[in-house]
């Protein structure tokens, strides 16, 4: 066990820190950051990702031939730590970088890799994820969006929902049912769909944060070329599981939690000495900082396992469960410390930090649901981790 970094790693960190100091966009938007769909903001967010990519700090773990640097997990950790420390905005192309990119590298054809990987890195093409449907949430495999293979094309009909960024995304990676007669996990395929295709309608949904983050997407006889199928026909569930794994493999989770906690401490300090001397406040802060630190070292432990080539098992589910709940607790306590100011709308001139903590409180609640609810994570931990009996699965 050794938490120190090599001189090369330290030098890399200093170089990155200096670069960030010079290049980081000045204002940080609250909450999701990317929730807004103003074209100008999107253009700025794309420019930021491109800048970061050109400086060599995006998707560093990818193979060199696809624009990565084959960097080790430690280097990636340094990057995510420094990005969080500097308060860098999240990357607009995150979905592509973290989910569809790694999936294509693993399952895509050479042609797909050549076509899609580079624009993911440069933010020239933004991706959204077409998984959830009105009738398929936690039970994702019951999805009904139908894709029929006619000649060299799939004809897609159906509906997706909670599709973040669909209102400005260029492409969607999408799970569709290609064999309705097969058991539900065996009739699904993984398609790449051009969002400009005729027959696609995107209807934005307003989130409880008052932002337009996710959407409903309708498909009416949308034609998708056969070469946009990833992996084998009817094997989309396995392909998607690999992507879900990438989603849960959140390197930045603990850095974000630490940043959030630092914000909470600033709120407590800003409320004056009397608040900080209140034992209830002190003990709550002490309890939270303890769990924040536990998640920090838990992340280091997972990284070490990854670096040693050990399978993560259910660790990603534990991290997803604990860190999203912890982030929400931190935001809830900050809100409580703000008293009546806490609940003021971000549009109110009296709102503190433009309603940052109310937005965080709501946004972190959304994170508990997105990517598999806490309850689903508990099922995964109990069934895959502890070997408790699985729920009966119909079909």
């Amino acid at each position, binding site marked *: *066990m*050794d*938490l120190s970094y090599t001189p090369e790693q330290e030098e890399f960190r200093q170089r990155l820190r200096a670069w960030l100091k010079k290049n980081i966009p000045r204002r940080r938007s609250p909450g999701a950051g990317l929730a807004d769909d103003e074209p100008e903001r999107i253009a700025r967010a794309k420019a930021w990702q491109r800048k970061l990519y050109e400086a060599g700090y995006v998707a560093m773990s990818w193979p060199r031939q696809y624009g990565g640097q084959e960097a080790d997990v430690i280097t990636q950790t340094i990057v995510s730590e420094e990005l969080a420390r500097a308060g860098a905005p999240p990357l607009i192309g995150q979905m592509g970088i973290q989910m569809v990119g790694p999936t294509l590298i693993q399952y895509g054809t050479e042609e797909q890799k050549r076509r899609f990987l580079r624009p993911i890195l440069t933010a020239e093409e933004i991706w959204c994820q077409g998984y959830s449907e009105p009738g398929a949430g936690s039970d994702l495999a019951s999805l009904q969006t139908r894709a029929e293979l006619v000649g060299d094309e799939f004809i897609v009909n159906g509906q997706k929902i909670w599709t973040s960024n669909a209102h400005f995304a260029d492409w969607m990676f999408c799970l569709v049912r290609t064999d309705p007669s097969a058991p539900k996990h065996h009739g699904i395929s993984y398609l790449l769909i051009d969002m400009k295709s005729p027959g696609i309608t995107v209807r934005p949904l307003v989130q409880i944060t008052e932002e337009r983050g996710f959407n409903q997407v309708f498909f009416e006889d949308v034609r998708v070329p056969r070469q946009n199928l990833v992996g084998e026909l009817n094997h989309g569930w396995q392909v998607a599981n690999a992507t879900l794994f990438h989603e849960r493999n959140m390197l930045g989770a603990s850095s974000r939690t630490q940043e959030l906690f630092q914000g909470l401490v600033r709120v407590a300090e800003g409320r004056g000495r009397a608040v900080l001397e209140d034992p209830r406040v002190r003990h709550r802060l*002490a*309890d939270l*900082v303890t769990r924040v630190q536990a998640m920090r070292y*838990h992340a280091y*432990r997972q990284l070490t396992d990854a670096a040693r080539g050990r399978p993560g098992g259910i660790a990603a589910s534990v991290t997803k469960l604990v860190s999203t709940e912890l982030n929400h607790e931190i935001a809830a306590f900050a809100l409580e410390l703000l008293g009546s100011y806490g609940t003021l709308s971000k549009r109110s001139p009296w709102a503190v930090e433009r309603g940052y903590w109310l937005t965080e409180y709501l946004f972190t609640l959304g994170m508990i649901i997105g990517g598999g609810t806490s309850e689903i994570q508990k099922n995964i931990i109990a069934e895959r981790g502890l070997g*408790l009996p699985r729920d009966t699965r119909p079909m």
Partner: protein
Amino acid sequence: MDFGLSSEQELLQQSAREFLRCHCPTSLVRAHMDPQADGYPRELYGRMAELGWLGLLIPASLGGSGGDLLDAALLCEEFGRAALPGPFFASSALAALTLRYAARESCKQQYLPLLARGEKIATLAWSEGRAAWDAASLETRCERQRLSLRLDGKKLFVLDAHVADWLLVVCSFREGRRNDVAIVLVPRNQPGVRVRQMLDADRTRRPCVVELRGVTVARKHLIASGEKARAALQRVFDAARVLLAADSLGGAEQVLEMAVEYAKVRQQFGRPIGSFQAIKHACAEMVAAIEPARSLLWYAAYAFEREPKNAPCAASMAKSLLCDVYAWATERSLRIHGGIGFTWEHDLHLWIKRSLWNRHAFGEPMFERERIAELCGW
């Protein structure tokens, strides 16, 4: 950057687990629970001495096995899992570390090799029933006489004093014009020393009352005084926090394992209760509490050796988190077991009571949280 166990550490932990499964079953733990007996499984401790465990925290040059606090934490995790009775914590951790950090070289050479071999047992007598142990609040006094030291007072919650050969007594000591803290080594069989067991609900721990009435020892028995004694004790208490956190980790894992095994075989409503989400989620929540806490414990042990500036806060964090997780996990496990877990006959209560002792010793969570707040500068 490497935050994992070495292969030697993994081996140490694995072999300790197997050894204790074989040599420290709950039948042995129960056989040493009788309040009339001394709760000291000597045969088992003989084997532990042969394995080098009793001297794990003692440098090799002094007859020990020269482990660090993380090694000891891994061992204590297994002791917690097995609910090991006897004076390991008192003698091989508290007393050995006190001597290591406070004593002069000649003292260390005299005492530590005997502790490492398990030929002698020592313990640390610091508490007088309050959290404070500064010179002003210590009522146990040591006076310098012409050729000797004289001690009077009463120490409480002294672990395993009834089987100890040596008591390391923390007392108030007049030095020059002012009183300061001192540590004095008192042989238990010295005239004027009276030891009685206090009887904890956790029968695997044996706290004692030690009364000292006009106890006279040679002046060379003064181990340390003043700043040296205080600094050493701070460090010993932080090590104690980490090791109790480790014991709690092992106990929490044990009660989780028991709950999961029971949930797989216990049938109600025509199916194993482990197929109900109320039970599954309770078990999953234990995993989700235990695993990050383990990482924090590793860090606290690492910081103790490598990052002295962060060590006190990390120790308090590990202590408060693991002890809370342990007590909470035992409750969860009890709910899953239902009525059977509430019987004396079932083993679960061994860990329920051990979790309570761990939680209260060396800083209950409320005290630790205040210390964390202070150390964070709030």
